[in-house]
């Protein structure tokens, strides 16, 4: 994973609550054996009309949304399935961070493992962002802060380890492998075996 210390971009707002992983990437696109090619199907059934053409009314298709790397969404973003295809699709599309007042557990964990930043803010901050579309925001990953164009800065909570992995570009599998001897010891010392 590449180290990430700062994300700076305009925001794109998708105010719906409970946006589930079946909306982010519908199940029929999961019959793949690689990570690539999912970005074109991100939000597929909202993004395209039944005839396959682009749905001009969908927020990500608006000209102003082009190049926005930060998605601001309603409460409980990413609920539903454990498919890591959801963060893969968002990233391939060009989203680097998702901001909401609540982000589903498995989606959050999957995102962090891929360097997609899930940011939970209080309802007040979320409301402000939703009322101010396409606002310029700077995310300082090292300090865990979100700074708005007027200089207002809010802190967001993030697990210390997750932040360390993002900033240093740490590969968590490598981290686990380094503990091989402890894992072995654990297996040998268990009072029962599975």
């Amino acid at each position, binding site marked *: 994973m590449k180290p990430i210390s700062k994300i700076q971009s305009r925001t794109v707002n998708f*105010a*719906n*609550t*409970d946006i*589930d992983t*079946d*909306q982010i990437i*519908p*199940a*029929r696109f*999961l*019959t*793949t*054996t*690689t*990570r690539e090619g999912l970005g074109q199907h991100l939000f597929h*059934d909202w993004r395209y009309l*039944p005839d396959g053409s682009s749905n001009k009314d969908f927020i990500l298709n608006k000209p102003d949304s082009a190049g926005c790397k930060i998605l601001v969404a*309603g*409460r*409980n973003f990413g*609920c*539903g*399935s*454990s*498919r*890591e295809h959801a963060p893969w699709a968002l990233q391939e599309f060009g989203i680097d961070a998702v901001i909401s007042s*609540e982000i*589903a*557990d*498995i989606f959050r*964990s*999957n995102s962090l*493992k*891929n360097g997609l930043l899930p940011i939970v803010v209080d309802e007040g901050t979320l409301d402000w962002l939703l009322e101010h579309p396409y606002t310029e925001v700077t995310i300082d990953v090292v300090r865990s802060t979100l700074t708005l164009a007027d200089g207002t800065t809010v802190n967001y909570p993030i*697990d*210390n*380890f997750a932040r*360390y992995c993002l900033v240093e570009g740490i590969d*968590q*599998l490598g*981290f*686990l*492998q380094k*503990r*091989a001897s*402890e*894992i072995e010891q*654990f*297996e040998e010392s268990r009072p*029962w075996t*599975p």
Partner: protein
Amino acid sequence: MSTTQPKTLYEKVWSEHLVVNETDDAPAILYIDLHLIHEVTTPQAFSLLSERGLPVRRPDLTLATMDHSTPTTPVRTLKDLQIAGKGAAAQVLKMQENCRQFGIDLLDFDNEQRGIVHIIGPELGATQPGKTIVCGDSHTSTHGAFGALAFGIGTTEVAHVLATQCLLQRSARTLLIEFSGELQTGVTAKDVILATIGQIGVDGGIGHVIEYCGTVISAMDMEARMTICNMSIEAGARAGLIAPDDTTFDYLLGRPWSPQDTAWDEAVTRWRQLPTDEGAHFDKSVSVDGKALEPMVTFGTNPGMVVAINDPVPEDGDAAFRKAIEYMQITPGKPLSESRVDVVFIGSCTNSRISDLQQAARIFAGRKVAPGVRALVVPGSQQIKREAEALGLDKIFAEAGVEWRESGCSMCIGMNGDTVPSGKLSVSTSNRNFEGRQGKGARTILASPLTAAASAIEGRVADPRRYL
């Protein structure tokens, strides 16, 4: 102090699996006793192992099956496999190749133990109290019915477990949900969990592990308990748990993966220590009156948008409510019993076990599916299929005009070619009524097998109690 402090079931299982404790700066390293894998969420994990030249650390703790992308018609040739689509077929072939290459026993098409991953774990006795169980699938919460700590993970984590048999995890908060009293006739585990999600919300469990308890739960058999735990994720919870008891042990006795002989007695002694201690602390608790529950149906596009079967759909709500009503083409203020049904699906890891099929058969027996309705029963495993056929349920379904299939996820997720056509209304015993979940544009009402069968007979959303 720590030895006398009362602990919850969750805390006991968690602490028994700590390879390395968590600190402010690092999550715990948690040992995994059982890793369930299927074809959809593993190919990229195996690729990661291949790229790094890593083996699978414990193939013996890995249970592999195929369920999501598999056809529910018999597969004898490659052409049969492609019924589900070229992508689906390629994914299934990749699963065979990966399991061969990494030395994992795969329950392949011709294996009589094959089925939906969350059905076969318990059925084989691989799911046991006190185990940690993970799978690249959110409904792994099902296995919590046995007092196992079981949760869904992403594909990167699947690679972590394949390579190290461990996961990096933070401990969760705890939520106790107690169901008092007893259920009325016609009210099932599915209705209980739908009502509960309606009460606490689809995000009510975020960050929490739920423990379900109370008289309603103790009276339930294992299949009903699995239905409850299965849908914990629909409340946003990390996992759902039920304390193991004699019902649990009776279910597991003699199954292929269960401990045998003296190991069985030792295991039961150990399992009896697992239930939450008197006075243990939960971060939150909720109570639900079992007597007051009725058959439930969803009206919207998430499992929390739910009403009792004869109650009117709410008149008004927020933007999400209005969007859901529009998608579902449902009239606010009216009960769903006015809605015409096109498809009835009885299956999925929520409700495809033998007791679910028996309940449906009880309603289908001697009756016919209403004209214009397509009804389909998909058993959760090949074992359940054989059991149902031995009981003659397949004949009851056939006489009623219901399709009887091979096991698999089928119309729960619509990845294998079994889909609900766009705009059609389906009553489904699965767990998600998200937009397009059963097929692009499909409109889904979640319900129990009893309600689904009654709806197939009447051709509209129907209260099953008049048939009981």
